[in-house]
């Protein structure tokens, strides 16, 4: 890839480029800013459109602007409708109108249709390039249609069928159509249990079905059961990837992860959460500062403060992650899920509490300095670990559940709020238990 010779004729450049996959050419296009026009001219619009759809959003917009009206229109003509929609989504309103005005009438209608669905619904992300045949055709007619009438844009790995009222009936793989004998009854070959989704269903449902039923395309129906599009497994991968990155970012309270952002933008992006964390943390400390006498009398308590905070935090992380993963597959957390996490919290809290008490006792015993009431301090540490871990495990399952109930993004649970709640209860139980045991 690095040995591409740019200083040559367009024909020679094209011959070098076509040896590579569009994804590789796209990377090359992004990194060689001065050569963009030359790459575009060498490939010609028909090959270039495969590269264009793989470019980063801002490169797409940037390059599109450098083209003249005719070039823009011809590029748009070659793009699939759902790719045009993706591209439009990255543009500002005023530019969108400009681009739409360049589209052929048919595409314009398809685009308007796609925009009428809610964001992240199956309808909004569907592609109108599918084949739906009438069940009244025979095998020969169907095969003839598929071999002669379809365009390059159409997905034909699976062929769909509708009845006289245009209602969706089922699907057949291209494979079964090809191997079918001419005299077979077409209706017998149609798979009527082939999964489908409705346009208003969330895209997550479509992806889950594609994955669970091992299919390449899933049909999307409107509310009168007519098919309006398909979703491809390729799109499923893209969306799964987005969801995955979103989940990971929410775990660490970073907003969006983009490798092109400048340091200042990165800092600004992350500061709000960090500030919230810090301020909440300071508030906790202030509210607990009344316990400083306890700490003053037993400095040994400070030694185990990080341990208690960490243990509560760790079990909280586990139970939040389990709950968020669970909510990706089911609509709400059930009572039994709460008890499940709570029981695990009690068991592991008890195990860690015992171990924590033993460790802290051994630790104080080994240290050269002499400590008063070593066994009592160990008791305080053990009990605090036990109690705070149970509380954290419980909050870890309850917070996402409550957020989901109020239709908020449950992934926000892994944000600073829960960390702070956990810290508060962990330190609170530590200091209160210490005051009770050591001051009586």
């Amino acid at each position, binding site marked *: 890839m690095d040995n591409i010779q740019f200083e040559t004729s367009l024909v020679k450049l094209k011959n070098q480029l076509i040896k590579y996959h569009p994804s590789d050419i796209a990377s090359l296009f992004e990194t060689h800013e001065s050569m963009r026009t030359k790459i575009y001219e060498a490939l010609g619009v028909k090959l270039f459109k495969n590269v264009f759809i793989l470019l980063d959003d801002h490169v797409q917009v940037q390059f599109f602007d450098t083209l003249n009206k005719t070039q823009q229109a011809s590029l748009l003509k070659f793009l699939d409708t759902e790719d045009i929609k993706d591209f439009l989504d990255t543009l500002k309103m005023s530019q969108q109108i400009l681009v739409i005005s360049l589209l052929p009438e048919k595409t314009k209608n398809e685009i308007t249709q796609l925009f009428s669905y809610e964001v992240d619904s199956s309808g909004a992300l569907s592609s109108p390039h599918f084949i739906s045949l009438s069940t009244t055709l025979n095998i020969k007619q169907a095969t003839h249609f598929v071999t002669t009438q379809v365009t390059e844009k159409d997905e*034909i790995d699976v062929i769909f069928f509708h009845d006289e009222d245009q209602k969706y009936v089922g699907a057949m793989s*291209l494979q079964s159509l090809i191997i079918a004998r001419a005299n077979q009854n077409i209706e017998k070959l149609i798979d009527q249990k082939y999964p489908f989704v409705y346009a208003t269903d969330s895209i997550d449902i479509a992806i889950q079905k594609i994955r669970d039923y091992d299919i390449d395309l899933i049909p999307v129906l409107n509310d009168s059961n007519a098919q309006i599009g398909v979703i491809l497994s390729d799109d499923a991968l893209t969306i799964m990837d987005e969801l995955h990155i979103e989940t990971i970012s929410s775990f660490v309270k970073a907003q969006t992860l983009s490798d092109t952002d400048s340091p200042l933008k990165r800092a600004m992006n992350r500061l709000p959460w960090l500030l919230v964390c810090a301020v909440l943390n*300071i508030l906790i400390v202030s509210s607990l500062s009344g316990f400083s006498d306890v700490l003053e009398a037993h400095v040994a308590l400070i030694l185990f403060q990080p341990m208690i905070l960490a243990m509560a935090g760790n079990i909280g992380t586990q139970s939040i992650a389990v709950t968020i993963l669970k909510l990706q597959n089911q609509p709400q957390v059930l009572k039994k899920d709460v008890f499940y996490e709570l029981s695990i919290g009690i068991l592991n809290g008890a195990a860690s509490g015992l171990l*924590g008490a033993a460790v802290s006792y051994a630790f104080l015993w080994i240290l050269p300095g002499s400590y008063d009431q070593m066994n009592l301090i160990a008791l305080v540490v053990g009990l605090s670990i036990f109690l705070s871990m149970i509380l954290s495990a419980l909050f870890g399952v309850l917070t996402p559940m409550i957020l989901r109930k109020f239709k908020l993004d449950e992934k926000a649970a892994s944000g600073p709020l829960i960390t702070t709640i956990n810290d508060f209860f962990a330190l609170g139980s530590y200091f209160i238990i210490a005051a009770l045991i050591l001051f009586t």
Partner: protein
Amino acid sequence: MDIKELLKQNATDKEILTVLESMHSFDIISIFDELSEEELKRLKDMMSTEKFADVISYLEPEDAAEMLQSQSLDEQVLVVQNLEPDDAADIINELSKEDRLELIEILDSDEPVMALIQYKEETAGSYMNNDILTVDAQDDVKDITKKLISSAADLKSVKTIFVVDDTDTYLGQISLKTLVRSKVPLKAIDILKKEPNLNVYDDVDNIIKHIKHYGIYDIAITDEHDILVGAITTDDLLDIYRDEALEDIERLSYLPDTDVKSGVIGAALKRLPWLILLMGLSIPLALITSNYEAILTSVVILALFQPLLLDSGGNVAHQTLAVTLVGLSYKEGVSFKDGIKEALSGLIIGFVLGILAFVAAYILSDMLGVASPLHVSIVVSVTMFLVVILAPIIGFVTPWFLSKINLDPAAASGPLITTVIDIVCLVVYFGLATVLLGGQMHG
């Protein structure tokens, strides 16, 4: 009528079978959990071998192996022949050693699955299918179509046709879509498209990088001499991606494999090792703190700011860690430039948080009547500043280094980073405190 009710009402096998046939296998396995053992056995016994094979191919391999094991050996062979070879290989590899040997013994050695069970888990070889349709470069469209029709009944998927030369070297592939629209006298060599392929020993990380970069299609798998040995199909790719994504999150949140269902005690035991390990990692912190007890005794308020400092350092480092891990999962990887950007953003964040810490520490220590609030707030804010600057560097270098020495960066980075940051933080914090506030220790 659903299966569960039919079973309860003692419906005849025929009635139940009709319902079973009309259900997708994935939907059938989702009711397994709710059935009693006898009911499950009854279902198993009445299903045809083909249906049974299709149903268990949707189960997790461990569960499928358990189902398979309950059949007689002859039946097992029939089931294996009806499974896709890659699924069969996964299931056979989950059988207990004796059962596995017994089954392999009586399986035909040219059964496609036999070539697959040799590959190590999580390599391209273990995910691939080897019953694929291959044609010769010189075959014309008519030959290919003929071959396709004659073998389609035996092969699960022929939506991609692979083209090889006379030494079985991979040349390219033809989608069914292209084939139906091509006419004689075109030959395979004229209509094939050479797509990037993978090596049979490539591990799962490479597969993920490959599909993130090139998108999802039926990927040809070759051996080290470019001989075509199989293909990974799109449906399997989605599953591979999902499993890896899930594993990433599990590792970041100290979880065991959550796909396997287990009871409360089992789950608790599986999550415990991480917790114990992490507890162990907090012991050095206690040790460091104990070295500075003198200063802590005289300025107890320092202890109250400890969580703030530790949390902030950890938070910032984990943000960088996540950016870096996501970056590492792409083909381009991460560059040194990204590290610099992260470090610079740490500088800005450190400055802001440092100021905040200064103000808060001053107000709080003044309220509590500490002797020198200015010194305390300098100690707290300077530590905050230094830790937040250092955090992104550690958060970047750790996963980068781990991936360089071929360790999984997602698994080890979290705890390693937290421990390093915490230690640095405490040493700086108490060290500074001793220098600046040490004078009042005995006063």
